[in-house]
């Protein structure tokens, strides 16, 4: 076997590094946080978020600069793209990361997380993975970015170590995501075998020259893109691959949920667009029926699931499934306009979803509960600001003008109709009607339902001494078999001041959280009233990717 030696002649130039500068800055910030964690005393760990935030802002500034003056070429021998689609995705991901960082300090404190340095580092690394995935110009980088973001998020989901729900979220996410990654990877292998390339442009050229004209797709290619579709659909939480989403979103720390619900979607959808809409665009006839079916299932399923939810966090998780369905409509449509619409929708989703999760996060109690619908009763009178932000964000998610959610839905459904997918637009519009129910119910609870008399705190938490804990553990051992109450855990619970005070008075909402909520709110409204700039940017980005 003789390897083509020319491939190894490649030497990275300064230009290559400049084209991935935003990613490098985020990586640098992550490492800096890790170092600073050693230097900063335990009490001042909130400053770590600031360090990360500065890195994110710097990366965003550089990204904006590259938008204006970058050459838009690929780096490292066609591995990583720096076109406007990548930059657009980077900006949205950085926005999500910035808000995630702003949400974190108060929340992390309240949930009793000690390992601040690791937390912020992993958050930044996840953002790095997302940016890589969205900028991938090769299947290799798609996979690399995916794994970087996933590995970071597995840990972050399980980050509240002492809380079973968080552990469970991490474990489920880990097993299922690795499982789905294997499918994605196998699909990539088969696609590689069918086309002889992993670079997206080379794949595009191959299918355009060989597969598309004849209409005779080799089984290897079909199997490859089918399995890749499975992997991507898992990542974007499309039905029937969505089952992990609500569990992980509910179990994970809410600051992470907010960040990953947006960031993962952006990364996965942009990568999906790059692989399917662009590289495999010439053979759309082969993959669009599959994604069509998935889109329909997702729109219907996601909304139906959400209708009966009582927990707002879980409802938002299913809403994220439903929104994936609308975004898939744009993917299936496949035109340049649809790609622009997809990017608009992603940006819209980022603002409104971060706002909504941000309010949930601000209300969540230190035991991770307090997000059930009843907890929102009469919120407008107790927490007017939070209620207003959540109301606007939910109206936006429901697609009511003049919010950015309406602009997003308008763009996607309009692109679908213009692209000849009238049926998808109609299904989308009808399922959106269904969506009104559950968004509205929360607004209703906040504004029109009397707040419940202060719920007596569950007895077992008020008295967190060892006896009840061991009693319950003993009960567990009778059915479960092995378990013996481990004193250390009970002590941890008792020692943690946050866990004791479940009957806590309404906690302070930290300035960072307020800032983040204000940003999300302003973006949700301003981009709804004047979406011109957003549409412009998204259109340019789409033009850079799909001609």
């Amino acid at each position, binding site marked *: 076997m003789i390897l083509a030696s020319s491939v190894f002649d490649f030497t990275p130039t300064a230009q290559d590094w400049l084209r991935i500068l935003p990613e490098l800055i985020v990586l640098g910030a992550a490492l800096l946080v890790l170092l600073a964690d050693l230097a900063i005393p335990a009490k001042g760990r909130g400053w770590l978020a600031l360090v990360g935030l500065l890195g994110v802002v710097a990366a965003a500034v550089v990204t904006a600069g590259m938008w204006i003056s970058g050459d838009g070429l690929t780096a490292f021998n066609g591995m990583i793209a720096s076109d406007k689609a990548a930059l657009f995705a980077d900006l949205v991901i950085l926005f999500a990361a910035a808000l995630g960082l702003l949400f974190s300090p108060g929340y992390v404190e309240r949930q009793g997380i000690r390992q601040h340095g690791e937390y912020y580092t992993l958050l930044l690394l996840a953002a790095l993975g997302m940016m890589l995935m969205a900028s991938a110009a090769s299947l290799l980088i798609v996979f690399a970015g995916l794994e970087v973001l996933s590995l970071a998020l597995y840990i972050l989901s399980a980050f509240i170590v002492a809380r079973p729900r968080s552990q469970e979220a991490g474990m489920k996410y880990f*097993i299922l995501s690795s499982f789905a990654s294997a499918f994605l990877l196998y699909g990539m292998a088969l696609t590689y075998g069918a086309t002889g390339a992993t670079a997206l442009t080379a794949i595009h050229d191959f299918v355009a020259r060989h597969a598309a004209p004849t209409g005779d797709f080799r089984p290897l290619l079909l*199997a490859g893109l089918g399995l890749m579709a499975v992997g991507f659909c898992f990542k974007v939480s499309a039905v029937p691959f969505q089952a992990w989403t609500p569990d992980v979103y509910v179990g994970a720390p809410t600051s992470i949920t907010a960040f990953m619900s947006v960031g993962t979607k952006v990364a996965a959808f942009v990568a999906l667009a790059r692989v399917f809409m662009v590289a495999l665009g010439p053979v759309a006839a082969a993959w669009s029926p599959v994604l069509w079916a998935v889109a329909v299932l997702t729109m219907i399923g996601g909304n139906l699931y959400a209708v009966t939810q009582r927990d707002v966090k879980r409802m938002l998780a299913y809403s994220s499934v439903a929104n994936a369905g609308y975004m898939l409509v744009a993917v299936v449509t496949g035109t340049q306009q649809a790609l622009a619409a997809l990017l608009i929708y992603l940006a819209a989703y980022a603002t409104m979803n971060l706002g909504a999760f941000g309010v949930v996060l601000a209300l969540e109690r230190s035991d991770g509960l307090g997000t059930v619908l009843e907890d929102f009763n009469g919120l407008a009178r107790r927490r007017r600001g939070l209620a207003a932000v959540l109301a606007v964000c939910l109206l936006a998610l429901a697609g009511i003008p003049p919010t950015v959610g309406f602009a997003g839905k308008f763009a996607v459904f309009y692109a679908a109709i213009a692209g000849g997918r009238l049926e998808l637009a109609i299904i989308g519009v009808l399922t959106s009607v269904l969506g009104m129910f559950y968004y509205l119910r929360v607004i209703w609870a906040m*504004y*029109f339902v009397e707040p419940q008399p202060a719920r007596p705190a569950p007895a077992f938490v008020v008295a967190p001494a060892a006896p009840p804990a061991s009693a319950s553990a003993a009960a567990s051992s009778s059915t479960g078999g092995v378990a013996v109450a481990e004193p250390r855990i009970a002590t941890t619970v008792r020692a943690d001041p946050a866990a004791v005070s479940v009957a806590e008075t309404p906690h302070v909402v930290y300035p960072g959280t307020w800032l983040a909520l204000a940003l999300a709110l302003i973006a949700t409204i301003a981009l709804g009233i004047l979406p011109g700039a957003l549409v412009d940017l998204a259109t340019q980005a789409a033009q850079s990717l799909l001609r």
Partner: protein
Amino acid sequence: MLNLTVFTLALPLAGFLILGLFGRRLPRALIAWIGCGTILLAFAAAAADFISMLGTAQTSRVADTTFFNWVASGSLRIDFGLLSDPLSAIMLLVVTGVGFLIHVYSIGYMADDPGYWRFFSFLNFFVFAMALLVAADNFLFLLAGWAGVGLASFLLIGFWYTRPSAVAAATKAFVVNVIGDFGLLLAIFLLFKTFGTLGYEAILYGNPASGHSCIAGPFCPAPLAIHPAGATLTAIALLLFVAAAAKSAQLPLHVWLPDAMEGPTPVSALIHAATMVTAGVYLVARAAPLFTAAPGVLPIVGGVAGGTALFAATIACVQTDIKRVLAYSTMSQLGYMFMGEAASGFSTGIFHLTTHAYFKALLFMSAGAVIHALAGEQDMRKMGGLRRKLPTTFWCFVAGGLALAAIFPFAGFWSKDAILGAILERASTTGIGGWYVLYAVGILTAGLTGFYTFRLIFGVFLGQYRGGEIAPHGAEHGPPEPAAAPASRPNGRGREVASRRDPLARVHDVGAAMRWPMLILAVLAVIGGFYGTPFSNWLGDFLAPIAGTSPDVSGGTLALNIALGLAAAILGIALAWLRYGARQASFAPTRNPIVVFFENRYYVDALYDHVIVRPLLWAGRLLRRDLEGVALDGGTRGVGGVVGWSSGVLRALQTGYARNYALAIFLGATLIVVYYVMQR
């Protein structure tokens, strides 16, 4: 020509923001001043526009001001612009004028309500959204206003949120309206796909200067550049009509309007009688060129409208809640307006819209005065003989009732006559039997209208009082005020004695804030129709450049039309007199199957509940329970918290959910592979 429309929008919006943000801390008097003052100024702006329009030549009565560019990207270009033309001028005058009177009325009506500031801020928001709806110069911002008034309606129906019925009604209204919103959205997509723009000017009216041209129709001055397929136009027009039907409570999307009476009465008057519900009528008139050019749509509109008019009128005849009688009456009258529009009499629909705004707002205000006086009682079986106690209210009610029943020369007479004339003319020119049927339905409905209106008046104001003693305080208010009852007790004995003699001893007629708006509207209900008589149809001519010339009858046919309409109305009133006026009104329950059928509203609500609502809820539950595991939900029904969760872990069946999820992924992948194998 002036275009001050922006002030008509901005002032109510400012009022909404001020009251919404700071209202809680403001004194009541100031809230009232801000709430009413902004609307009065908005009315002044609308009136100034209108007057300057009158001074402009008829052919150039359009002022379209673009404020900013909403989206400009490739082929997609949508501006935010406000339009001042005859149609929007009339609509703005009605919205702000009647809106102002109802704001003033609310000062008195809501005086004791703890949510005073909230009420006025919502009301201001409504006027803003409605003004946006009628003044937008393109379909997209029409939709924004459309959704805005829906939201305002939702908030105001549910204003007394402690009542479960109000909550249910608000939700129902929102859901039905959302169906309409999405119909409108789809119509907009199709419009954009067909015409490449959303501006009224380009799509509907044509503008040779800008290179646009409009669709075929009697109003199109320019030769056609775009020839959309007839089917496309029909689809667009039908989708627009779905939106109009949802907003204007036409069959089969009417179910929300009667329930919407759960809102405070000023809301019923403003939103669910005078303005918002007429948005559909406005939309059809606005898109008149489209509806005219779209093959086969106007007969459908006529059928739905005629059906609704008759359907609602029959139900109104058996209702006993006075607000519900008026609600069904509103539905029926809206059907009337659409009937006129269906017969190409678009200006007659708008004409009836204006007169209906006067007399129906008046009737609701009067009904509100009765309800207020009787401490929240709405059932007319417990009323009667209130004429002497509430003289102003009585005479206002009679004026409104005569206008509603279309008795010469009250406002409703002229507008109803114009609609019936348009239908009759349409029938005689086309010779199609369907239009004659529609005309017959119109006459029959006119008779029913006379009957139910005067059944209401006789039942409430004549005869003997049938109710119990009236509590000293409060109206139909939701949030109970615990302070009210004990306060009256200290000197209660003397009053009790007095009240035993006369249960209405404490009942008093309306105060000044409520009286003056009612009197002004009463005057309008009497004379408000004179601008559209068949002899000098000023309104028809004014609207002609936008809505086209309505067909109208003349000579002997005109006389026949007037005679038939009047005869039907008088017959209806006479029947009501025999049944409820001449002797003590009898509202005894009946087993008459037709009446029972009407009382159950033709069972439409029950049908929707069984066919749509329950299956949806069931499907949602099924998905949740069966696909994601059948186990008991330890988290929500257990003790909650950490122990709850871990005991949930222990209690759970030995079904591995993570593995179930993995199985779903695996099966999904298998399905896709199988699909590809089958393809080959």
